[in-house]
């Protein structure tokens, strides 16, 4: 039976030393965490908090100063574990003299995928990331977003069980960000485990099941997103089509029960939703100026009702 714990760190510490062995930076201090199978785990923190260092230790790109890092039950430096993982680095560090097909083909060969299987997989992935039209162009001619997509494709070439994403939405436009998030959720639904590292909190909030917050190499908080973000001493109510009299009546009810109305009014949507809505409507009705926030808000509300 497969273990439920996919990633485990025990007292993981990383200290960068100079040539003479003197300590320069303590990047990670005694990190203990576990990532369970089938969840999206977010690693948060400001710049220099140790997020990328953690990922590199898990991948064997760095060696721990002390402690242990286990991936799929194997030591992080064990090359064999890489058969089942995929990695999207912070920048897509790909060979710029290769084109998209060659890139994915090359990485597929590193997994010793049979030629026909590899060819099909390459084709599927290029299709999935929407770069079929540019598959024969060298990567040096790609935009940042296009390179990022190919980076994601190479991370998925071997259909991995565990995917490590370092700042996955960097360089993507809002549509790309949305697609990336949708893809992450889809991968989770397929049973894959995702370790996501980002300093863009909104992105993490949308997709992660559990998060760990790092600061200066130390673990500051760990837990489920929904429970960590819940503001327990407040109640939120949303309703549509309420006349002003009804709003006044609600205020009085709250007052009668000893509560305090903090705010009441029209909620705001997110800029992401507004943008996506405008783009969607522009595609549906080309040449017409589309409706703005209210339309976006309505779409968001409709989505929420649908999910309930």
């Amino acid at each position: 039976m497969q273990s439920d714990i996919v990633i485990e760190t025990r007292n993981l510490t990383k200290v960068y030393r100079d040539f003479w062995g003197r300590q320069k930076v303590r990047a990670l201090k005694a990190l203990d965490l576990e990532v369970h199978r089938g969840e999206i785990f977010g690693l948060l923190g400001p710049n220099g908090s140790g997020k990328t260092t953690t990922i590199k230790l898990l991948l064997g790109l760095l060696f721990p100063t002390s402690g242990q890092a286990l991936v799929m039950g194997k030591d992080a430096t064990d090359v064999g574990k890489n058969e089942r993982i995929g990695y999207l680095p912070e920048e897509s560090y790909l060979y710029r003299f290769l084109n998209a097909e060659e890139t994915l083909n090359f990485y597929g060969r590193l997994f010793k995928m049979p030629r026909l299987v590899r060819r099909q997989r390459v084709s599927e992935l290029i299709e999935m990331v929407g770069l079929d039209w540019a598959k024969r162009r060298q990567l040096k001619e790609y935009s940042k977003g296009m390179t990022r997509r190919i980076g994601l494709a190479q991370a998925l070439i071997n259909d991995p069980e565990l995917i490590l994403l370092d700042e996955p939405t960097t360089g993507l436009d809002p549509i790309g960000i949305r697609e990336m998030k949708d893809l992450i959720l889809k991968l989770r639904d397929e049973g894959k485990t995702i370790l996501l590292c980002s300093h863009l909190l909104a992105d993490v909030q949308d997709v992660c099941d559990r998060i760990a917050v790092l600061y200066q190499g130390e673990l500051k908080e760990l837990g489920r997103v929904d429970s960590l973000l819940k503001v327990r001493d407040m109640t939120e109510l949303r309703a549509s089509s309420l006349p002003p009299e009804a709003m006044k009546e609600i205020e009085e009810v709250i007052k009668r029960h000893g509560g305090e109305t903090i705010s009441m009014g029209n909620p705001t949507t997110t800029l992401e939703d507004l943008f996506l809505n405008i783009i969607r409507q522009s595609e549906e009705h080309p040449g017409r100026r589309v409706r703005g926030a209210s339309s976006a808000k309505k779409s968001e509300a409709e989505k929420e009702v649908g999910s309930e």
Partner: protein
Amino acid sequence: MVVEAKVIPFLQWLAGATLDWFLVVAALTAIVLTLVWLAGALRHGPAIATSTVGRALVAGLVDLVAISPKRVVALSWLAIKESFRRRVIVVVGVFIVLLLFAGWFLDPGSMYPARLYISFVLTSTTYLMILLSLFLSALSLPADIRNRTLHTVTTKPVRPSEIVLGRILGFSVVGTILLAAMAAVSCVFVERGLAHTHALVEEDLSPVAAPDGMASRAKKGRTDKQNNHFHEVYIDSKGNPRLATNRGHTHAISIDKNGEKTAYNIGRERGMLTAKVPIYGSLRFKDRNGKDAERGINPGDEWTYRSHIQGGTMSAAIWTFEGITPEQFPEGLPLEMTIEVFRTYKGDTSDPDNIPGVMGGLSLHNPHTGVRGKEYSFTAKEFTTDSHFMPRKQEPAEQDSTFSEDDDLFSSKEKDDGALDLFEDLVHDGKVEIWLKCLPNSQLFGAAEADMYIRAEDASFRANFVKGYLGIWLQMVLVVAIGVMFSTFLSGPVAVLATAGTLLTALPMVSKFMVELAQGPKYGGGPFESLIRLLTQTNMVSKLEPGLRTTVAKEADKVVQGGLSLISSVLPNFGNYGFSDYVAYGFNISGDALLVASTRGFAFVLPLFIAGYFFLKTREVAR
């Protein structure tokens, strides 16, 4: 060309070389492991150090043995793709331009045009390929580490050994492709550059009277001058034409008679591009009284490669050849020799074009029965290869003779009366002796073992040319392996410098110096003994006072010399792979020489690959 070292048969060489290799590798491994263990023990204690070193060794063995050929091929493909997408093919273009310019400056009319052309193409190819290999191999991996493209490779199930091997193979393939292109272009350049012919008309020929004074059809003359030389022409009494060899070559000639008109058609050069297959013998000497001697005399020459025989005495240099069969030499023995003429007096040198030569004598002897053929006297040619043909039918020893170009103009009756047959009378069990004597008093001939050889049937020049390029290929692979190894732990520019520095030590003269250093000086002792001599103002030849100080110094010197010996074994010697001289001087590169060089190359590449693997494995790629 001086062939100082004999080519040892491959199997004979292999046993000893393998043992030496294992000893050197074992010694180096022991030193490295000890140093690593010491560093670990100082940091973490002996128990942890032992466990770490043990685990690293086991993991290393697994990584080296479990290499996936498919991944290695994929990584090689990447290296090849990178090279060609970065336009390495430009090197071939540069080479072609170089040849085009060289065509203006290389003189086909020089004394040894074949040598000149071949040396030029092989040398320029060598330099270009070495430089290209150096930069390709030393800069690639550091660039990947700096650009972090290696992160997306090492996070796949790829072993460090596969990365290192993939690079070495990939760049070797790139070099092979470029080298093949340059070899093809060079071959065409050499053959076309040396191609020439001559013109001959009737007016250039004059009749030669027969020995009996009767009229004959024999003629002689010379061709026109092309490429700064001409050929003597001989037409024998039967009307068969022949061109004499000049500048190491001749031409085919045919005669077309059309009524009164006779046209002489001279074809392309022959014998200019050769791959001689020399059969060397063993050399011994007779002193001035005819007694056996280990070596000849030394007339004061610093270079002791050659030994000398005195003229006008019973002194002789005797070569014994083996494996001489009638199937190989049905007509006789073609000899070539490059002996040194040591004059104690110059003679009349007032006419520089007619400086008197020094006469020598050559004779064949049966090593078993002592029967000898007649002694052919000849004028020794200095600073060049002299060719003689010892015919199958030999006159008995009593009759003297002299080699002459005119001998063949008049067909003589069969010399069967009392004639000796080479294989029936003079060769015993495939062995024959060739005696060389110097005839005039007070002059000497210098001879070394490789100075005389029997010339077997030539091998193919083109095949030999390719073999010459194989030597360059071996050097290129070695440079790639060294460059990749250094690039696993050094930055790009530093790896280039380190590789270049190692190549400098691989130069033949530097290698020779290192070996001499390791063998120790003849006088004065090693560094510690020399220090004592300096401090006590003792000269280099006197013995030191026996005692503890002297003993310690001598033992310390032995350790130093052992270390130097180890270092000189570890450093490659490019002289072992350079066959350019063989091709330029027209000598065939034997299969044994190729096998020895290839095995030597592999013996260097393997430890370099292992070292590169360990350096990459212990490196934090993301740092």
